[in-house]
């Protein structure tokens, strides 16, 4: 048992232990019948959802909503972030409201989006966009304001133009914090889209979860939850792999 495998074994052991507790609680009469179905049933339902292709159209809808929303969040987040980072006066005016609103649950805006965009995917896109905006704008503003002054002096001293200083010094300096903001942004955009689907929708991962709940098909509900979690974990893993490649931008 070397250093690499020991944490992994503990993690696997913890999952197995949890599954054991789950089965015990499910088989006992502690909770209402059907709330804790056996793991085997859940796995079976998950397998059916995947092998019949049932989940994929819904997965695609969620991905579409989250991606489109995230694209808006990225564009506006970086633009506003750069403006705020560059101008201390603007920053003083807009930073406090942005920070306060960042901490507010965006779900409170959902009825407004429903009114404006209807119950289809645009309202979920809006949720994703509003959610993803904040980590990106905050990280971008901080990155822009904290570019190392010495690097700017170096650029000036070798005669770099303003454009060159921006592309060759500012942009590489800000890349890692902006990517970190993007990673958070993707996560919360996904959450925003799924939250919208849970409330009012006719398609998507959130929709099939709440629909299973409404028809009291509990194993199917857990299966969809697990599959959603698995998908989100894959997205996060992909972002982590990208970020690891960017180590050399760290300062």
């Amino acid at each position: 048992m070397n250093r690499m495998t020991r944490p992994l074994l503990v993690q696997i052991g913890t999952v197995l232990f949890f599954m054991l507790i789950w089965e015990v609680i499910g088989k006992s009469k502690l909770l209402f019948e059907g709330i804790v179905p056996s793991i085997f049933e859940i796995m079976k339902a998950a397998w059916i959802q995947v092998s019949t292709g049932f989940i994929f159209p819904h997965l695609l809808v969620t991905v579409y909503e989250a991606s489109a929303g995230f694209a808006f969040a990225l564009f506006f987040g970086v633009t506003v972030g750069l403006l705020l980072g560059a101008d201390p006066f603007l920053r003083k005016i807009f930073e406090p409201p942005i920070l306060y609103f960042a901490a507010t649950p965006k779900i409170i805006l959902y009825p407004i989006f429903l009114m404006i965009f209807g119950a289809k995917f645009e309202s979920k896109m809006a949720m994703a966009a509003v959610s993803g905006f904040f980590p990106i704008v905050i990280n971008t503003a901080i990155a822009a304001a904290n570019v190392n002054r010495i690097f700017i002096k170096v650029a000036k001293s070798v005669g770099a133009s303003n454009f060159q200083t921006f592309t060759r010094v500012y942009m590489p300096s800000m890349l890692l914090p902006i990517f970190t903001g993007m990673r958070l942004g993707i996560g919360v955009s996904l959450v925003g889209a799924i939250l919208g689907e849970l409330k009012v929708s006719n398609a998507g991962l959130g929709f099939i979860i709440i629909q299973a709940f409404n028809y009291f098909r509990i194993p199917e509900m857990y299966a969809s939850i697990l599959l959603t979690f698995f998908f989100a974990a894959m997205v996060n893993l992909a972002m982590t792999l990208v970020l690891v490649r960017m180590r050399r931008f760290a300062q």
Partner: protein
Amino acid sequence: MRSASPILEISNLSKEYPGTTAIENTSFDVCSHEFVSIIGPSGCGKSTLLEIVAGLIPKTSGDVFIKGQAVRNTHASIGIIFQEESIFPWRTTLENIEFGLQMRGVSKNKRRKKADEMIELVGLHGFENRYPGELSGGMRQRVAIARALVMEPELLLMDEPFGALDEQTRIILGEELLRIQQEIGQTILFVTHNINEAVQLSDRVVVMTARPGKIKATVDIDFERPRTSEIIASEKFGRLVGQIWMLLREESLKGFKLGKQ
């Protein structure tokens, strides 16, 4: 030891900020191939002086000439090296050295060739494709020096470049710097607060007063060139260090009291 042509001429230079005068009426020259150090207490304006000469900040009054041309902005013939970490962590050693040439539009092949020459000169052979995160502090400063020297500046300004390094690395790098300077005949204006370093490296040491900074005295260092760090064992070395410290001590105490206010 002083050749005829001054590379840098400073006359009656003053720099004022709201509420305080950093530099007051300072004048001195640096001639071709000379190594001149400026030493002074903290806050005496020596870094400010260097940045004015580099064209990074404006002066309040007085004149600064590089080879007869007034300094208005950053200049191709002035290179500057800072104390803090200044090489870009996202570029390799070679790419960092090429930075200035790249900004000036020099072709890729020509850049690479000049950078390779610099690598040999500063002793970084084998580290061409490493990133700064993989280099020691001393190596990183060598990259910064190479980056400045590859531009072939008339005057190289160095603002406490070895201040963040340990003593042994400092002495070794000082020797390296002397070797490089002698090899290419570089004119250097060097700011430090380390008296041993000033005596080890310079032809002349300019001692500044506490704020507002003026020139208190100039001490000639007449060790022969080429020098090695063996001179630090000599009696003359100790005498010169003592002489400079006597000049400096009074100013340092003043600067110390000003700081406490």
